[in-house]
């Protein structure tokens, strides 16, 4: 009896929290058939928002992958003063509200700050432009790759790498042929999580982008703008597109994972 009660609670909980809202978005999107959906998604603003979202997400994922793996290697394989501090700092982006992250970036890179001003004089604009949005996205998704890779790297140990060294492999060869394949599954998982987070980022992006329609508007910002302007069909179409992207990344990660587990 208790078993069924627990199942029922879990199902009802999921229904009201996840299935119902997402389902309703999907239903509202396609309530007038597929033609209006295609129309709203193929508007120049929507297409541009798509493009910006992808560009920002891909850059953020690339940067986080490189720094994530490097940071994980540093934390697992090396001992140095300040390691505990670094370790604690990596989780900070998860604790700090993205809006705060955005504001902090404006304080450093805004045109009226020393750093931002210096860059601006040389024609580099960070805030209200793509680099700032990439920075913000990198910041909020910083821990995802590091934390995914770290335990696997620790579990893997250093013996395989040492064996490769004694067999004549250089540091680069060992990293490419032993370390990376060894952490592949975890790395893919981290990258997918990071990608999903980057695609859905709203708070920090909202602050640093300036929400310039057709310029720095990402899909999430597009949804919000259209919703505020009572263009609900546009908002729902873009929402469904975002949700499908998220589902797609998760499916891809699930497909990639079991192959590696042996």
């Amino acid at each position, binding site marked *: 009896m208790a078993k069924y009660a627990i199942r029922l609670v879990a199902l009802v909980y999921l229904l009201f929290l996840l299935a119902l809202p997402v389902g309703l978005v999907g239903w509202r999107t396609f309530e007038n058939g597929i033609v209006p959906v295609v129309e709203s998604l193929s508007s120049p603003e929507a297409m541009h928002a798509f493009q910006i979202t992808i560009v920002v997400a891909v850059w953020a994922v690339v940067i986080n992958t490189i720094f994530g793996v490097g940071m994980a290697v540093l934390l697992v394989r090396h001992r140095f003063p300040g390691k505990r501090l670094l370790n604690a700092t990596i989780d900070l982006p998860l604790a700090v509200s993205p809006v705060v992250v955005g504001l902090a970036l404006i304080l450093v890179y805004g045109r009226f700050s020393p750093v931002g001003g210096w860059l601006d004089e040389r024609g580099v604009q960070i805030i209200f432009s793509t680099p700032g949005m990439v920075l913000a996205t990198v910041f909020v998704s910083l821990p995802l790759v590091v934390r995914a890779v770290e335990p696997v790297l620790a579990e893997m140990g250093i013996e395989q790498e040492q*064996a490769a060294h004694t067999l004549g*492999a250089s540091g680069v060869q060992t990293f490419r042929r032993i370390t990376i394949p060894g952490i592949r599954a975890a790395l893919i998982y981290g990258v997918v999580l990071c990608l999903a987070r980057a695609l859905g980022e709203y708070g920090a992006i909202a602050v640093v982008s300036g929400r310039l329609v057709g310029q720095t508007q990402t899909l999430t910002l597009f949804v919000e703008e259209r919703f505020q302007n009572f263009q609900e069909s546009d908002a729902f179409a873009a929402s469904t597109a975002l949700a499908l992207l998220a589902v797609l990344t998760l499916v891809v990660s699930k497909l990639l994972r079991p192959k590696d587990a*042996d």
Partner: protein
Amino acid sequence: MAIEVHNVTKTFGVTPVLRDVSITVAPGSLTALLGPSGGGKSTLLRVIAGLENPDSGTVTINGVDATRLTPQRRNVGFVFQHYAAFKHMTVFDNVAFGLQIRKWPKAKINRRVTELLELVHIEQFANRRPAQLSGGQRQRMALARALAVEPQVLLLDEPFGALDAQVRKELRTWLRRLHDEVHVTTVFVTHDQEEAIEVADDIVVLADGVVEQAGSPHEIYDNPANQFVMRFLGPVTEIDGYLMRPHDIELSATPKPDSSSATIVRVMRLGFEVRVEMTLDGQDAWAQITRSAAERLGLKAGDTIHIRPIPNAKQLPVAVA
């Protein structure tokens, strides 16, 4: 000499692990580094491989000073206790790894790897992953992988330590035969004195980061330099203030010149041999004799027996440490 280690010192933090260690390994020999856990034997092996840097001292391999060379450039084969198999590669690719790094042509690699897999008897598993092999098979794969690059010296760190007793025994006999075939200078670390005596040409006993004794298995067993070596290499018992081997004790029913009398506490038959436990002036001692000798004497608990060391028995005074 194939390997010369001169005055090597190594400290981890404040703990000295190797203290002024010097050893030499003859070309083509099979040498055991024997000692208790934490004695520094693995560290010494890793210093020879270049996986650890000594604080001071030098390592020479085939006449070349290798002290500052990276492991990559030493051309040594290293086999780890826990195999260090490349988990994401097939058995074939594991063995081929060093050759691919050396950019051998594909056909030559194929030939060499097949040859090695046959040598270690795992040719039928070439396309499997290491996870699909047993421990003994994985260790043979690791050995083939190390031998593939034709190393100047082969270093084995407790190679059979993670295997069960039966496989251990098989593999060490097999290692001895393999060495007689391949003749590469080999050093292996073990804490099992039986393994060292059975397999090695030479034994170096290491304890507390110091070489206690080096020599052939017979020399070390029959002529231990000190009490530690004597205790470590085989069973000992203490009689009249002397440490001796329990099989070096002669038992008789009647007093003999220089014999002492003891009271039998227990007679234990362990297959062919018989273990006689006794007390001697309130001290526990034991002797190891054959079953026929025990039957001849008709030993049983409570009897008084006369004991003395056999001629030429190795004895070390206990008082002098």
